[in-house]
């Protein structure tokens, strides 16, 4: 682990500790903020870790927002189909993997302009989700599903934590191990840095890229299905509210390191949890219009990215198609 990374992680822990201390003095409940932080960071971590891995291999997918949106709706659909929240999460994973696979295939074999294709996925979702809501539930507005389909949180000493949050944190650790400690990880990085060298060394660049894009989509799909099934308890067409792009900001902040992406997601999740806590605090909610409270996550994202950017290095061939000459 590089010194800089250790510095960042220690700095984040200290800032978080001070922030929680400050919050307690201000009269808010830190435990509820921590719980909200864990909920808000979960989709960000999942989407960001997946994106770190597929960007390392050379596929840039900015369609995370679209995948989150589509899988949140279809996750609920799956949960109602199987009568089980976990079934819905799995369905979300499946749909996310399919979109990731599609993204991988068109990036690798059809040499698509990846940023354009990813934006296409986002805009597709913008229209497809209202279509889905009406097609499935015959109603374009909010859809609430039975509480029994929710994935229940586990009681822990630091508050109730959803099992998906634990999976997300584990994913970040495993993703880091995968990239830095396994042969597959070295191959993934080779495909992003020097695809021609990887090709000469006998690595199937195309398969690795398609595989990582699928994996990234699957993780993002879990994050998408988690939003209604583990967190909100309902689904609307604006459910992801820019989280796909906040996840991209995590990736940029992290310079494609899954553990740093986890740290970034914690910061952004905290910003959101803090915003919720502020929004419902008596004495505050009357003074500050909640429209400004809603801006906190986006402003935080901008600030963090602006401060942290500059020292990051990205794979040389990320976002570029590779073909044998």
């Amino acid at each position, binding site marked *: 682990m590089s010194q800089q990374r250790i510095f960042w992680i220690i700095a984040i822990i200290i800032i978080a500790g001070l922030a929680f201390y400050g919050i307690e003095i201000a009269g808010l409940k830190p435990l509820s903020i921590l719980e909200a932080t864990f909920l808000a960071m979960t989709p960000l971590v999942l989407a960001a870790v997946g994106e770190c891995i597929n960007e390392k291999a050379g596929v840039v997918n900015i369609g995370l927002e679209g995948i989150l949106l589509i899988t949140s709706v279809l996750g609920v659909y799956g949960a109602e189909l199987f009568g089980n929240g976990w079934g819905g999460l799995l369905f979300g994973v499946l749909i996310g993997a399919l979109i990731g696979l599609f993204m991988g295939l068109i990036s690798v074999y059809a040499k*698509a302009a990846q940023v354009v294709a990813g934006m*296409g*996925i986002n805009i597709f979702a913008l229209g497809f989700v209202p279509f889905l809501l009406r*097609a499935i539930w015959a109603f374009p507005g909010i859809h609430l599903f039975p509480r029994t389909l929710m994935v229940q949180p586990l009681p822990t000493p630091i508050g109730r934590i959803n099992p998906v949050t634990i999976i997300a944190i584990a994913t970040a650790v495993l993703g880091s191990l995968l990239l830095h400690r396994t042969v597959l990880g070295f191959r993934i990085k080779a495909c992003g840095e020097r695809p021609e060298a990887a090709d000469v060394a006998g690595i199937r660049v195309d398969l690795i890229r398609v595989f990582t894009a699928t994996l990234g989509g699957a993780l993002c799909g879990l994050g998408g299905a988690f939003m209604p099934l583990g967190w909100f308890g309902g689904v609307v067409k604006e459910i992801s509210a*820019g989280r796909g792009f*906040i996840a991209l900001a995590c990736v940029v902040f992290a310079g494609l390191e899954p553990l740093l992406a986890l740290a970034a997601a914690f910061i952004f999740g905290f910003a959101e949890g803090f915003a919720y806590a502020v929004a419902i605090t008596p004495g505050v909610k009357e003074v500050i219009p909640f429209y400004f409270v809603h801006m906190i996550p986006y402003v935080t994202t901008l600030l963090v990215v602006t401060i942290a950017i500059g020292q990051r290095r990205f794979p040389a061939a990320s976002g570029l198609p590779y073909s044998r000459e």
Partner: protein
Amino acid sequence: MRWLRALRPILESLSAIIVGLIVGSILMVFFKYQPLKAYAALFKGAFGSTGDILETLAFSVPIMLTAITFALGVRTGLFNIGAEGQMYLGAIGAVAVAGLLHLPPVIHVLAATLAGMVAGALWSVIPALLKVWRGVHEVISTIMFNWIAYHFSIYLAIYFLAQPGRAERTVPALPTARYPVLVEGSTLTAVIFVAWAFCLFVYFYLWGTRAGYELRLVGENPHAARYAGASAKKAILISFLLGGVAAGLAGASQIIGRPPAWSLYATLGNVSSLGFDGIGVALIGRNHPLGGILAAILYGALAHGGRYMEYQAGVDSEMVRAINGIIIVALSIPELWAIIKRSIKR
């Protein structure tokens, strides 16, 4: 075969649209709708009568302008997707001047238009500076600014611009600040001429001036641009600001150039997503301001016909936006045309 090569951009755009419609129909079948009935209704809704054609043109106004925002970005090597937020602020600026100020007839329209353009441009300043100074990627900064603009605009609409007694929308534009309706009973107003003029202006700016040439050079070949002494920072700033002006005008056009509301809904319902629609329009129009006019009419037809499709076939009109997304994905594939040609030959 030379004529085929000249037609190639048009054929590519058309084949992408066809791919979009086909994939859209597959999705409709999947959810037990009748795609033929839906598309028949869509095209009848879009071109069925003179009135419908006028509506289609009215729908093309904001998206040809937000398309300029994106196209200018692409021409400078940027992926500027901030039109959405800049458009909200443009609408707010137009409402403020058109609804609250009292000015003489012609001056009022001009002032309200200008207010929209300036507000849109102002909202693009910070992402532009972040890009130039810190290298913050515009995809992240502009999307964050879109969401901040969303909440900020609703706040302004409700706290400062609300119509007394009608909480769901802002004060309407005063009659002196409205563009005249061209044909009685349609929603097409003279604002379309302003939009066309703006597209022409951007065209002449990009291909007729030195600054426009430098802007394109920065986008096409940054190294050559540096040799030629063109400043990338200046080009990026101009691209963002001019894009913001276009998006702001798009927002204003929906307030002072679009009956029957002549105002902004507090949910931003009558402007939302027009900025994202512009991305598809720009790509279909090959990131060219004049191509964008034609593409906007095509997409305007889909958008207007989509409402009739919802009424006739039950398919949500938002499906048109999904088809737009598929078209964008299809256009991202440079070999789409080659793939189609190969499969036709077979």
